[in-house]
């Protein structure tokens, strides 16, 4: 787990990409990790069903914030219907190394919120699907 905290993770944690809030978003959602209180809010702006831009805000551990930050880069330009289909693996591909089971919820929080925004209601936990 100590190997997890690689430079690029810490970089995303300290300099989160697409961080902030839009005045107006086409779809949005937020949730918190009931286990630890980490919070993520995601907003999407769409063009014809495609993600034109994205912002996230929140607070929490390096894992939740870095995963969310990386995800925002992943989804730019994706079709909203594809965002709704994103799987656990998309996050794991981003973060690049094994996450202990106890931290999986942290890693999946951003994805859950993103998928919730895409489907318009609270999505299942990607690690429990």
């Amino acid at each position, binding site marked *: 787990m100590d190997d997890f905290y690689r430079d690029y993770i810490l970089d995303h944690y300290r300099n989160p990409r697409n961080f902030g809030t839009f005045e107006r978003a086409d779809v949005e959602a937020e949730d918190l990790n009931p286990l630890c*209180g980490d919070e993520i809010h995601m907003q999407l702006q769409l063009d014809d069903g495609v993600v034109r831009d994205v912002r996230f805000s929140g607070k929490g*551990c390096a894992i939740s914030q870095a995963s969310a930050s990386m995800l925002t880069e992943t989804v730019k330009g994706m079709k909203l219907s594809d965002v709704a289909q994103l799987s656990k693996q998309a996050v794991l591909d981003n973060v690049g190394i094994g996450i202990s089971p106890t931290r999986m919820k942290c890693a999946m929080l951003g994805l859950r919120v993103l998928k919730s925004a895409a489907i318009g209601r609270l999505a299942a936990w990607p690690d429990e699907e």
Partner: protein
Amino acid sequence: MIRTGTLLERDRDNEKLQRIIADFPILARPTSRGKRLVYLDSAATSQKPRCVIDALVQYYEQYNANIHRGVYEIAARATDEYERARVKVARFVGASPSEIVWVRNTTEAINLIAYSWGAQHLRRGDAILLTELEHHSDLVPWQLLAERSGAHLRFLPVDERGVHVLDDLDGLLDGCKLVALGHVSNTLGTVAPLETIIPRAHAAGAIVAVDGAQGAPHLSLDVHALDADFYAFSGHKMLGPTGIGALYGKKALLDAMPPFFSGGDMIRRVRYENTIFSDPPRRFEAGTGNIADAIAFGVAVEYLQNLGMSWVREHERALTAYALERLAAFEPRGLAIYGPRDPDRISGVISFNFADIHAHDLASILDTEGICVRAGHHCTMPLMAKMGWSATARASFYVYNTPEDIDVLCAGLEKAATVFAR
């Protein structure tokens, strides 16, 4: 420094402490990375000595049987041991056995008060006084009771160190039927000034229900002397097994309360139409109890009593003093220590954050060194929000912890600093 030096000498070669550690099988097992287990999460749940585990095995291998109604030999022994455990637990907190109701945990005990006593006594307009420190288990049941009864909640404030502010206590007590508060904060370790609050609550006509989840394991207790009306505690936080706890209630209160759970074993006579209930404590114990765990809980409090609760308190006080001193050395590098800094006012719990390392990340890195600390909101989300903390790391101590454990924790903090320095 001299005090700490003395502590180290005394404890490092303290035979008693070594003997205690040897009583806990889990502490002899290295982690998957081959590290010594440094268990600093006893506020979440304590480890169990061999005698407690053996009590479970003995019950299941020698005299497992349902109680109270069995005529045969093993049923008689099971009944006897179950009731003897009640006597032990009663004696441990200074109560009489008929004032001890078996429950699963502190949470169930508090819900029992809310559903049985609360439904009977609270009316629209009544106030319930809590404190800002309360664990969710001593907050949410009262929120729901307030919703059901029309009563409202008030909160005794705490200062920025988590110490109770009593300035307006009498004002807050005005119109109050019930005061519910934790004996010890699980997040900050603050010991509540019960000797002050209880008599003033009584003078104002309120009863006092104490959430003793963090009190009973750590402090010498005499509920009669304290004059608490209810006192709730969990076995698993005081060397006992999971699944068993106890509610102390003053006899007169219990006698007047309606049943909460109903079913087998709490009745005197049942007809299809109606039922006459047993006297307390059995009135509140429906269905087959957690026989094995109750018996093992009795063994756990016996173990604590043999250590001596004043020894337990002094041991934890000394560890806390040492930990505060060692952690203070990290303050220039961004370590923030929360809660009262005075070891005499806290009970073996220290919450902190370290620089920009989120508590969860810190806990994960410490885990790789075999160190178990808790990270998060510690079931006190409103307190965290009030204080402006999104999460804290928490180290908590118990009878088997040593100054070396704190040294290992500090080495872990060094490692975390290195990892996050990248």
